[in-house]
């Protein structure tokens, strides 16, 4: 077991302790007030709050899907409605009883999950856009409501279902039940969203492409999230109907879906707390205001929404946080231990073919960007890809890392043909791609970015924010050399350009790749940074026996570190040879300077 190295402020432990204390106290307060409140509140307020609690649960699910995963969804109302009708229909058809109740809950869960899975499959696929997902989420409640309307006496059509016998609880206990469920859901949501998994979801929202190239099947994650939130929303609906004793189409309507979004937007997206604040606020306020001034109320809501979107996109909670920022202790100050892991022992002598490319072409209609590109590269080779703008270098990189890109030819990574596989699958053959413009997760800390990068090797925890950061030695060395190790707790967006590049490299290396694709990694780096970068690359090939394919304009840099150079010109390989062959070739000078090769002998 290699020793663990510790970074970040010590004494963080004590902060943890006090935080733990704060949370326990808070929890006790919440539970206590929920249990006692109904004794103080009048029946009216109690009833209002009970409904508000159930609605708030639905709002939380919207916050998770939209605030955390970045899909603006109008559809959660549909799942809420499914819960409502599951109860209403079953109690109406079979009467009230314990087995009916269980059947109801089961139906609510299964129906919601099924619809959600279907919706998810429709909304999320490699290359789907957030806008498209919103469109689908818009269609779901509309279709559902239409079904309810035409459902005759079975669904009660527009009048909904009423008069079925339901759980006979005292209002006070309904309040406690609803309140505690809300508290529970909120707590679980907060825990998960702050856990390593939660970070992953934020990563999806911030940079789906990067996640895909880290071997994460983003669509799958999004679908899972949708199904889980759908189930929760459906259960909320179940409770709502159980208390209200009514099922109405508007419980499932697109209007209600929009109302949920507005609640989250006003309260503050991506905070869970915001969803609760928004939901309770709007529900209670509307109960007291809308009765007496119906139109003005809608007007207020509309104006408030516009104002919040324009002025504070993070909603009330977000605004509040900005105000109190000064007073609160500096955020995320947990200790993080970097711990090197045993990398899958790379065969000492074996020198397998890492990249194999046969007759690869890429055409847009008649125009062909790549044509008949063919080469192979071995482990511990550093192969540079040079050529003027528009020669097709980046296109070639894309064709190597995404099976769906090339229009012709064969590509194998680490001996596996990549067929038509999406990047996240190709990555699992041992490929790591670093983009030209540093592609990281701006909103996450350095440590979180690295942890997300490990996702497909080490499934992230649902509950914990682990303080151990297990990375392959290669990644650790980059982190340490670049000085990132001193700033693990910092948000990536604050890093310098150079450090961002280093971070992305470290993230890619965390995949333990055998093949590394680098697209102009030194663009915009300082001289010193470039040197550091060169050293890292050389040791990666020498020590970790990686095969590196480097796209680079800076020929000085290329000459310095390459073991071999491929010159790409107008989509074809113009030259493939050792550094000296290429550097002294007339052809290259011509391509680069448009100059006839007359002066080439004058070269030293």
């Amino acid at each position: 077991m290699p020793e663990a190295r510790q970074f970040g402020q010590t004494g963080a432990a004590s902060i943890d302790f006090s935080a733990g204390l704060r949370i326990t106290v808070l929890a006790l307060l919440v539970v206590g007030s929920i249990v006692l409140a109904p004794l103080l509140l009048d029946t009216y307020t109690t009833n209002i709050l009970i409904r508000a609690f159930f609605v708030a649960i639905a709002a939380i699910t919207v916050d998770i899907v939209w605030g955390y995963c970045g899909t603006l969804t109008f559809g959660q109302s549909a799942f809420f409605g499914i819960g409502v009708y599951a109860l209403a229909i079953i109690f109406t058809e079979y009467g009230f009883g314990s087995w009916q109740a269980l059947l109801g809950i089961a139906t609510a869960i299964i129906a919601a999950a099924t619809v959600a899975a279907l919706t998810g499959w429709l909304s999320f696929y490699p290359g789907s856009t957030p806008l498209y997902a919103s469109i689908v989420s818009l269609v779901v409640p509309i279709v559902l409501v239409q079904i309810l309307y035409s459902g005759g006496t079975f669904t009660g059509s527009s009048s909904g279902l009423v008069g079925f016998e339901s759980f006979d609880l005292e209002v006070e206990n309904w309040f406690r039940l609803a309140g505690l469920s809300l508290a529970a859901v909120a707590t679980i949501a907060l825990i998960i969203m702050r856990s390593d998994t939660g970070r992953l979801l934020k990563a999806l929202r911030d940079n789906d492409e990067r996640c895909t190239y880290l071997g994460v099947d983003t669509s799958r994650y999004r679908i899972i999230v949708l199904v889980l939130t759908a189930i929760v929303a459906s259960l909320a609906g179940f409770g709502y109907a159980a208390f209200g004793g009514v099922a109405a189409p508007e419980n499932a309507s697109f209007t209600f879906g929009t109302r949920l979004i507005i609640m989250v937007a006003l309260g503050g997206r991506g905070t869970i707390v915001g969803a609760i604040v928004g939901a309770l606020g709007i529900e209670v306020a509307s109960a007291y205001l809308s009765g007496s001034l119906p139109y003005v109320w809608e007007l207020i809501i509309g104006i408030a929404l516009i104002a919040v979107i324009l002025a504070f996109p993070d909603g009330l909670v977000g605004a509040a946080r900005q105000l109190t920022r000064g007073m609160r202790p500096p955020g995320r100050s947990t200790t993080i231990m970097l711990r090197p892991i045993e990398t899958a022992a790379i065969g000492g002598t074996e020198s397998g073919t890492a990249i194999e490319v046969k007759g690869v072409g890429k055409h847009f209609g008649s125009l062909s960007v790549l044509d008949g590109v063919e080469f192979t590269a071995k482990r511990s080779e550093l192969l540079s890809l040079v050529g003027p703008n528009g020669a097709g270098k980046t296109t070639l990189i894309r064709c190597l890392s995404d099976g769906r890109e090339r229009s012709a030819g064969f590509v194998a990574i680490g001996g596996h043909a990549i067929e038509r596989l999406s990047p996240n699958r190709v990555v699992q053959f041992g490929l790591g791609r670093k983009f030209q413009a540093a592609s990281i997760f701006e909103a996450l800390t350095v440590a979180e970015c690295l942890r997300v990068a490990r996702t497909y090797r080490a499934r992230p925890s649902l509950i914990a924010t682990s303080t151990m950061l297990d990375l392959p030695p290669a990644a650790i060395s980059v982190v340490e050399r670049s000085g990132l190790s001193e700033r693990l707790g910092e948000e990536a967006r604050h890093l310098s350009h150079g450090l961002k590049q280093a971070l992305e490299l470290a993230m890619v290396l965390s995949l333990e790749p055998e093949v590394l694709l680098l697209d102009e990694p030194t663009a915009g780096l300082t001289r010193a940074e470039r040197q550091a970068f060169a050293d890292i690359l050389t040791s990666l090939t020498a020590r970790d026996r990686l095969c590196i394919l480097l796209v680079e304009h800076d020929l000085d840099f290329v000459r310095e570190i390459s073991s071999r150079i491929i010159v790409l010109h107008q989509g074809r390989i113009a030259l493939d040879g050792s550094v000296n062959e290429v550097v002294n070739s007339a052809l290259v000078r011509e391509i680069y300077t448009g100059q006839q090769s007359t002066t080439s002998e004058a070269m030293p």
Partner: protein
Amino acid sequence: MTSRAFIASLAFMAATGSALAADPIRIGVPVGLSGANSVVAPSVVQSAELAVEEINAKGGVLGRPLALDVADDGSGAAGAQKAFDALVFQKKVNVLISMETSAARNAGLPIVARGKTPFIYTSFYEGKSCSPYLYVNAWVPEQQVPPIVDYFNKEKKASKYFLIGSDYAFGRGMLAFTKAYIEKTGGKVLGEEYLPMDGSDWTSIISKLKASGADAIITSTAGGAPNVTLTKQLRAAGVSLPYGNLAVDEGTAKSMGADAADIYISASYVTGIDSAANKAFLAAMGKKFGADLKTPNDLSVPEYEGVYAYKAAVEKAGGTDPQKVLAALSEVAVDGPRGTIKMDKQRHAPLTMYLGQVQADGSVKVIQSFSNVDPGAQCPPKS
């Protein structure tokens, strides 16, 4: 403008309330100030205000004044739950008297039951809504449909009908009954088509109608927009068959102008009823509201009578005790603009129905009247 008128009325209530010393009997009126019913709601509120004013002027009920609490139910379930909660548990009203959508009414029933508050429902509806707390003094299909169908059968020699409705409980409920009744009376239904409640393009349905060779149409759409769009598009498509409309009220007909001409309606109230009570009522309404007057109609008049029915029941019961009042409600009879009304048929009321024809100027001419049409078995006692 709705909400202003409404706030004014509150102020007014406060005034009359303080006029009499004893603590008032509170009447809750949950109604669709916003949403689908918001067009007709103001007229309902107005007639409630008149009834309360008249009663208070005569010394109230058992010496106690009446006070109105109006709340917006948004014409839907969610809004209704809030409105009923507010009235029953916050305002602690003694009774609910209101005209609402079926969705709103249904949403209210559980709350009414929990609050053990009598509820007089004053809107015509598709029928079969039963709760020990619920009384209905407006018509149900059994009362409204036969006049039109019988008239078309006899006078128009119609036998092939085409039914068009909005896809919601009332629309489907009414047409289901109509279909059964037509077939019972030897007619045929060639088509029965529905459009979503918010649908406004009836083209394909109208084309089907024209292709069907029907010789009469009966429609039951949602009030307001769908009703109007359907009528306009029927006219635009040159449909001039006998046209019975189960959902149009006098006011809408008036504002629709020429397009509404020759529509047949069947109602328990039309302004043209030639009775002393009705004339007095209209005069009082005109005097009280002047320019702001919303045309009294088949939805607002029952509200007015509902208040009187409650007054009678309280006086019979000798107090506002819910159970006693509920018992009394089925026994008291009230004389109003629609004649004498007694909710003694399974908490529903036999009514005099009027078959009217909309004239070119939008007024409704009464063609025939059918007295004391029985609501039939709406809530047969469970055996």
